[in-house]
Every structure is written in structure tokens, then in C-alpha cells.
């Protein structure tokens, strides 16, 4: 009987512990943990798939840019890199509408470099003054800027083109810089909130020491906002580097790399020399990747600090 009881009781006891484990707090936590782990595993797998979907085309472009016309024509998925860097060298000298790819590269650097400078200057002037000084009309300007951002007015392109024609700024690099130099956009909002967050005490101290407003701006506030300015500068550079529309309309004789690449891919779409297009595409992407990798922390951190509030 005892044995039976023992034998009989043990499973019961085990069952009750299991029962407790399953239905008690520990069990709930474990199950929640398991559920969470399984959810995270699913998410992780989905992320891997999406990352592969994004990366495979680029790797495909990279390794095909090292292939000669024959290998490329035979098999686009083989690892037969006979051409080496030949395509890159050839691409540099390839002419699209009288401009070599190297020329386009230089055009891009000139247009985008200038564009970043004017954007930064204009945005900094506007955002600093609006954030740190109280004056008549400040609220009005701010509200108009917000409305301009929130109300999508489309179809202004023809009027913009007409105006630029009247001003004689079509096919003129100054015109492109002028278009890029808007001081009130999302960059403005970002810098505005950044300048707001800088304490005015520094400026007061400088004022007591006899610094003028301009000096406070240049020597105190701008250096303090350097991380934000760097982030805006890098993001602007990346944005303008990819810009297709503005150079297309206003800088036809000085095609940038984004514009030239499109023309080149149209020209060589059915040509055995297609790897040249891929080489150019890789070259067009490299500056952006380098910049992004170099300033990744600055960009991410500042986006975190500034955030965006409507």
C-alpha cells in the first residue's frame, strides 16, 4: 500500500509542480519570454530577408562591374571577373553628351559642394535668428514657414522655370545654388530646435565681456552647434548628390553624375558594354557611402537629440 501510495503520490506531486510551473508566475514569465523570443526570431528572420533583398542587387552590380562584355553577356551570376578595373577606367572617359563621366563627377562636386555651403549658411542664419531673438514678425514668419511645409502646393514647377528664365538663371550654376539656398525647410526646423536647446547664458557672458551679436553668433553659437550643422551638412550633401530634377532643368550643359548616369543607362541599355553603367553607378554611390559611414554617429545622434515634432 505504502509503495503504491508512494508511487501514486509521486506522479501527483510532480504533476502539481508542473501545474504550478505552468500556471504560476514563473510559468507565465517563461511563456512570455518564449513568446517574445519567438516573435523576435520571426522579426530577425524577416529583417535578414529584407536586408538580403536590399544588398543582393548592390553586390550584383559590384561584381558585374568587374566583368567584360562577353562574360556579362554569357552569365550575369558567374564570378568571372576578367575585366578588373578596366570598366572603371573606361567609364571615367566615357562621354555622354560631350561630358565625360569624370567631368560629371567634378560637376557634381562643384554643384553639390556649393549647394551645401549655401544651404548651411542660409539655414543657420534663419534658424539662429528665429530661435534666439524676439522681434516683430517672428511669429508670422514661423507660422508661414510651417504652413508652407504642411500645405502641399504642387505644380509650381512651370512657374519656377518661367521665373528662372526671366532671371537668366537657366543653365547657370548660380541659379542652381540659388534654388538650393532655401533657409526655411526641414533643415530649418531641425536647426531651430537645436539652437533653442543651447543656453543663452553663454551669450550673456560674452555680452558682458563686450561681444557684439555677430561675434556671439560666429564665435560662440556656431561652434556650439557644430554637431547639428555637420549632420545637416552631410544629409544635405547626400540629398543634393542624388538630386535629378534641378540639374535636369537648370544645368543641362553641366550634367551632374545623377543626371549623366540616367542618360548613360539609357544609351547602353541594350549594349554589351552595360557593365560600364554598373561601374558608373558604383562610382556615383561611393562618395555617399563613405560620407555616411564617416558621419553615421553624428547623424544618428543628432536625429535622436533633435527629433521632429509637428
Amino acid at each position, binding site marked *: 500500500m505504502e509503495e503504491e501510495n508512494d508511487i501514486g503520490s509521486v506522479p501527483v506531486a510532480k504533476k502539481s509542480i508542473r501545474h504550478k510551473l505552468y500556471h504560476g508566475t514563473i510559468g507565465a514569465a517563461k511563456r*512570455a519570454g518564449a513568446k517574445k523570443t519567438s*516573435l*523576435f526570431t520571426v*522579426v530577425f528572420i524577416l*529583417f535578414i530577408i*529584407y*536586408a538580403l*533583398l*536590399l544588398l*543582393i542587387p*548592390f553586390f*550584383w552590380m559590384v561584381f558585374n562591374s568587374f566583368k567584360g562584355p562577353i562574360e556579362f553577356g554569357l552569365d*550575369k551570376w558567374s564570378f568571372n571577373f576578367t575585366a578588373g578595373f578596366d570598366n572603371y577606367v573606361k567609364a571615367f572617359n566615357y562621354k555622354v553628351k560631350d561630358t565625360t563621366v569624370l567631368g560629371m563627377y567634378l560637376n557634381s562636386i562643384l554643384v553639390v559642394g556649393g549647394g551645401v555651403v549655401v544651404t548651411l549658411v*542660409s*539655414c543657420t*542664419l534663419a534658424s*539662429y*535668428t528665429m530661435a534666439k531673438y524676439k*522681434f516683430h514678425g517672428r511669429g508670422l*514668419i514661423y507660422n508661414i514657414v510651417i504652413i*508652407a511645409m*504642411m*500645405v*502641399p*502646393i*504642387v*505644380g*509650381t*514647377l*512651370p*512657374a*519656377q*522655370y*518661367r521665373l528662372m528664365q526671366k532671371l537668366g538663371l537657366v543653365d547657370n550654376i548660380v541659379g542652381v545654388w*540659388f534654388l538650393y539656398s532655401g*533657409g*526655411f525647410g526641414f533643415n530649418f526646423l531641425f536647426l531651430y530646435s537645436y539652437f533653442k536647446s543651447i543656453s543663452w547664458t553663454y551669450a550673456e557672458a560674452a555680452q558682458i565681456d*563686450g*561681444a*557684439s*551679436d555677430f561675434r556671439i553668433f560666429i564665435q560662440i553659437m556656431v561652434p556650439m552647434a557644430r554637431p547639428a550643422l555637420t549632420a545637416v551638412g552631410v544629409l544635405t550633401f547626400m540629398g543634393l548628390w*542624388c538630386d*535629378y*530634377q534641378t540639374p535636369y532643368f537648370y544645368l543641362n550643359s553641366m550634367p551632374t553624375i545623377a543626371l549623366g*548616369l540616367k542618360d548613360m*543607362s539609357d544609351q547602353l*541599355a541594350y549594349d554589351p558594354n552595360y557593365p560600364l553603367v554598373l561601374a558608373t*553607378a558604383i562610382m556615383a*554611390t561611393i562618395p*555617399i557611402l563613405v560620407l*555616411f559611414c564617416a558621419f553615421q554617429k553624428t*547623424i*544618428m545622434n543628432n*536625429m*535622436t537629440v*533633435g*527629433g*521632429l*515634432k*509637428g
Partner: protein
Amino acid sequence: MTFDERFQVKDMQENNAYDENAGMLDEAPMSDETVLNEAPMPEEAVILGAVEESQEDDIPAEEEIPKPRRKHWRGFRAFFRSRKFRRGLFITLMLLYPVAQFLIMWAFVNIDSIIMTFQKYDTVKGWKFVGLDNYKNWFQKFRADPAYTTMMVNSALHSVVGMFIIFPLCLMISYFLCRKVPLSGFFRVVFYLPSIIPLVVLALGFTNMIKVDGLLGKLYEGFNLEAPALLVPPKVRWTIYGFTVWAGLGGNLLLLSGTIKRVPEEVLESARLDGLGTMGELFRIVVPMIWPTLVTLFIMSMMGIFSVVFQPLFLTDKLMDETMTLGLWIFNKATDNAGNVQAATLGIMSTVIVAPIILLTRWALDKMFSGVDY
């Protein structure tokens, strides 16, 4: 003081305006540091010396310089040297360029865009007013032209895809990246890449993958199936939606994960202790707390109706009725002397229809979780 200014002063004196002004200007506060900071012009040095002396001796300026003419100069000068004036000048100079640029490129261009819809370009006479002709033209096309309708529908669908597919997925991705899925740093960079790479390059990569000898073709080959032709009608429309999703998921990643990271950890911790699951945490805690940012980004996704411009052009290398969008149509006609007024009219009419919807949505969304701040 220049000759002109002296002349001006003399004029004012003669007009009897001098006495009133002198009093007012004299009261304008002198800034001490400006006197010290700036090297004066030689002819001003004398007066400057007088001012400094007067301050040292602690004698009121009026008694020091009894001549009304000089007193006025000082008042005038004091005004120009006053902090108030200098600050005003500083603000004006700082805002001059940005405001001028904004007025020209935003205000003027928008007004001119409206004016343009009442005009037409004539090769002989140039621009002339034609009344409501362009609007009548637009209405006729809107009613009867199937290509026009396809374009409107395409744009509206791009907006829907942006709002209800890309935006929620981007939110989920950002949230899970903040919850430290393994390799989250790597994923963050990879997912953000399409937002910074030129669209032409993205389109090149994408089209080569969906061609018959691309990745998709290989997959179909593996299953012994025939790969579909995705870059010609009728499937090309869906290909373009697919492309916008593929390339757009990371678009708001930085802003969203930046904002989600700002949600205080204590709040999330207490929610977890109360037994809230991962998805519950996202939708019940994180979403309400970052609501203002979400509203702004959602509205921006809504504007996808206008912002899809080059995707169809870059993917298919040509303009097709099946893939036409509002933005691309306007882009295509902008420099064409016959079509630019149509483009302007289309833009204005689209704005008239869409802007109220957007503003209303924004207003409604703002009401949902108002007053959340941390």
C-alpha cells in the same frame, strides 16, 4: 559722420523736427562695449573722446556739449550705436537673404503659378490672359480622358501605399531596431541605405533583379516556372508600387528610431512589469507617446500622392500612360510652352482637392492623443 548725414541733420533742423528727435534719440541707451570695440573714423574720434570724457567725469551729456547741433549729432550717433538699433540691424541682415529667397522662390512662385493658370503662351504675342480656358480644359480631361484618370488613380494609390504599407512597416522596423534585435546596428545602416543612394542606382539594381535573367528569373527557373514580364503593362504598375515599398521602408527610420529612443525607459519598464507584451507596448505606450512625430510623418507619407515622380521613369525608361503619376506629368510638361499652363492648372486643382483632405486628416489625428508630452 559723412557729409550727407550732416546735410540731413541740417535739413531736419530747418524743418523744426530737430528738437523732438533730439530728445528721443538722446534717450536711446548707449552701449558701452560698442564704443570700446570699434575703431572710430578719424572725424568721429573727437566726439567719441567727448563722450568718454563725459562718462569719466560723470557729468550729463547735455551739459557737456551745449551746442544743439552737436547734441543732435550725439543723439543721432547714440541711436546708431544703441543696442536696440544694432540688434535690429543684426536681425535684419541675418534674415535678409533667407527671407528674400523664400519670398521669391515660395511666395512669388506660388502666386505666379496661380496667375499662370489664367494665361497661355503665344509664340508671337508671348504670355496672354485667356480667362478660365485652362480650367475648362482640365475639367474636360478630368471627365473624359482615360489616361488622365489612370494618372490620378496611380497617384492616389501611391499615397495609400505610403500611408498604409510603407509607414506602418517603417514604424515596426524602427521599434524592433530600438528593442535590440540581434544585429540591429547592421540592419539600421542597411535599411537606411536606399534613402541615401541615388534613385537611378536603386532603379538600376531593382530592374536588373526582376528581369528574366535576374534574381527573380533565377528563382522562377528553380521552380521550373516562366518568369513574368514585370516591366511591361499590365504588371508594370504593381512593379512600381513594389519598388516604392522595397526602397521606401527605411525612409523615416532615423527619425522614428530617434524619437522612439526618447521614450523614457521607466515607462516601458513599468508597462512590462504589468505584463504588457511587445506589440502591446508598441501600440499602447510607444505610439501614443510619439504621436506628434507620427502625425507629421504620416502626413508626409500622404503627400506621396505628389512626391512619386521619377520612379516610373527610371524603372521603365519611358513615359507610359499606365504608370503616369501627377508629379511625373507636371515634370514632363514644365518646360513645354504648350503644356506648362496645363501642368500648372493640374497642380493647382490637385492642391485644391488634396490640401483640405490633408489638413483635415492632420487636424483629426492631432485630436486623437493630444497633450502627450514628456
